[in-house]
């Protein structure tokens, strides 16, 4: 398939394809980070993760509408504010859900799956009732549209870069929070040995709520970022759920580093195969390979050794 192209053309295409892989990687990291915290650290299967992301997207949509009507001069900067708002809204709802529902189910992880699936149905229909069944278009400020031309062929999408930066900052932020802060230490203590952590005076219920809210908040930021590259509609969230869970499980549920490595592996595999095969077959093959590896190595790539 590469006949008749000059080597510089090929180089640029490979560069672009590398970039495509990286932006898929950052999408996966954004999707999976929130879930990795909730599922990996707390063992809760949050099937409504996609819907929390869409909540972030709708928050962005509302914010953009607000800025257009009342603060058109500041429209260029609305996106940053929208992300903060998306985090706050989703984290608040997350905390509420944790208090009402999740905390009763910590000892029954499979039941959290069913309950959060119910939650996702309710959230979807709520979006449909409030925002209408149609997808909404989120307008971006001028500076975020378009691409930076490196050479004639190599053009880097600005919003792709932006998504990467967000993904990177969130990954670093979560890492610092989990491994370099007192809060993170407590979370890890609760994950590894809940009774012992309680015995040394850690308020495990508070930690749980904060962690769940944090995971949902990150989902909100991801949703806000995805308005740049994806669709915002009542059922858009469901498209993400299988990929997200596979990334987290493949990485080894309790390891954040594992999640990032697995996001990298899956995204590179998928985008390379997409380049050589048709999109559908690439997707099927990627899923098959991941499932196959998981059958051989059920604990995922990076397993955390804990005494249970």
């Amino acid at each position: 398939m590469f006949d008749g192209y000059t080597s510089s053309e090929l180089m640029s295409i490979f560069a672009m394809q590398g970039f495509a892989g990286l932006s898929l990687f950052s999408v996966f990291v954004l999707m999976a980070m929130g879930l990795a915290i909730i599922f990996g650290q707390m063992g809760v299967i949050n099937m409504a993760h996609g819907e929390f992301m869409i909540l972030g997207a709708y928050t962005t949509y509302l914010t953009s509408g607000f800025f257009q009507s009342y603060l058109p001069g500041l429209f260029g900067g609305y996106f940053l504010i929208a992300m903060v708002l998306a985090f706050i809204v989703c984290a608040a709802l997350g905390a509420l859900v944790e208090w009402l529902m999740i905390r009763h189910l910590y000892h029954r992880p499979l039941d959290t799956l069913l309950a959060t699936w119910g939650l996702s149905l309710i959230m979807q229909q709520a979006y449909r009732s409030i925002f209408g069944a149609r997808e909404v278009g989120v307008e971006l400020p001028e500076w975020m549209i378009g691409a930076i031309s490196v050479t004639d062929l190599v053009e880097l999408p600005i919003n792709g870069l932006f998504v990467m930066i967000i993904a990177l900052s969130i990954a670093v932020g979560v890492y610092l929070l989990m491994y370099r802060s007192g809060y993170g230490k407590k979370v890890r203590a609760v994950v590894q040995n809940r009774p012992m952590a309680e015995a040394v005076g850690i308020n495990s219920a508070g930690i749980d709520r904060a962690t769940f809210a944090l995971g949902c908040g990150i989902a909100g930021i991801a949703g806000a970022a995805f308005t740049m590259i994806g669709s915002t509609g009542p059922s858009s969230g469901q498209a993400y759920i299988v990929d997200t869970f596979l990334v987290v499980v493949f990485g080894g549920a309790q390891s954040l580093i594992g999640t990032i490595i697995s996001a990298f592996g899956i995204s590179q595999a998928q985008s390379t195969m997409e380049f050589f095969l048709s999109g559908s077959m690439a997707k099927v093959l990627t899923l098959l390979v991941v499932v196959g590896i998981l059958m051989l190595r059920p604990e995922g790539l990076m397993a955390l050794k804990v005494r249970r």
Partner: protein
Amino acid sequence: MGTTDIAARGRPFGKGTGFRKSLMTLAASVMLATSAHGATPATAEVNTTGLAVTDDTVTVGILHSITGTMALSEIGSVQAEKLAIDQINASGGVLGRQIEFVQEDGASDWPTFAEKSRKLLRQDNVAAIFGAWTSASRKAILPVIEQYNGMLYYPTFYEGLEQSPNVVYTGQEATQQILAGIDWAVEAKGAKTFYLLGSDYIWPRTSNKIARKHIDKLGLKVVGEEYYPLGHTQFNSVINKIKLKKPDVIFASVVGGSNVAFYKQMKAAGVDFTDEKPLLLTISVTEDEIRGIGGENVEGIYASMKYFQSLDNPNNKEFVAAFKEAYGDDMVIGDVTQAAYLGPWLWKAAVEKAGSFDIDEIRKEFAGIEFNKAPEGYVRIHENHHLWSKTRIGQAQLDGQYKVVYETEELMEPDPFPEGYQ
């Protein structure tokens, strides 16, 4: 233009076969022809098969998804069908009877469509069903409607390969959308190479198959053909492939949420559609879809449809005004919505031509039924139950509307089983 002579060949209402009925029916037809609100034909005469017809009313069914993933697409059709029914009622109804409707929710679930169509036909005895949107839902309804001899008016442009005596297809079958579109790209834009891209299901695959055959026949080249699962949201790899292959035309039939992602990512990758390098020709983005994608992301793409909201003719102006009055000023009307609007009107024309609500009587009359007040202009039913209609090319504008840049001279003949394209 071609319209007039084709119209002249069409049969006006009330002449010809409609008159070789019993004396009573003849009398009824004459009465109808002379006064719209005059004496209505007796129910026993116009309904011999136990349909829900009384002396004052006739009941029809509307069957679309109000809930579930398809709701966003189908709501426009429901609105259009209700609008048409209201307008028909206001103008005196059908054979002097006011139309009442039973609405059922298909819930984006195909067995539900089959179930509800069975309910409409068996319990409600409806005289016609306006409904279905996806091919899968139509395929689910089909055996039911054939078994109980109902009549479905199906609004969506679709892949063809079907011709049921119990369905009237008010949208285009694939060749009506594709052939003229590709011819236009070749003649007006000098296109030589094509890249075919679609969501992975029957309609895009069949459409691309027809497109590929046609491109081959023209002696031109397809440089890529590609399908992505429904709901796929990452198109960077295919965008790179397109950049590598440098086709003159991207022929796109991506649907749903994937659409939004695809156009946003194309835009972000530095593709400016107004440059037409490459030119993007789609058969799946109507004004409805643009609302979700955002006008700024699709500005400059071309769509091959039979109807655009911006069509400049008196019928359409009236229709758009009525639609906005009924449902709000911010409504947009896409190709399928207009096709759905045709359903009740064509049914009324057929019923009045047959002088009966009986499905078998109506079916005899379909070929040649015409509708002059169609927003898209003039349409006529082909004997294969599809519509003769024009193909138009529109270019998307920043405000989410299409500007019509081309329309076929003649009405395109519907050909659900195109020879040489299978």
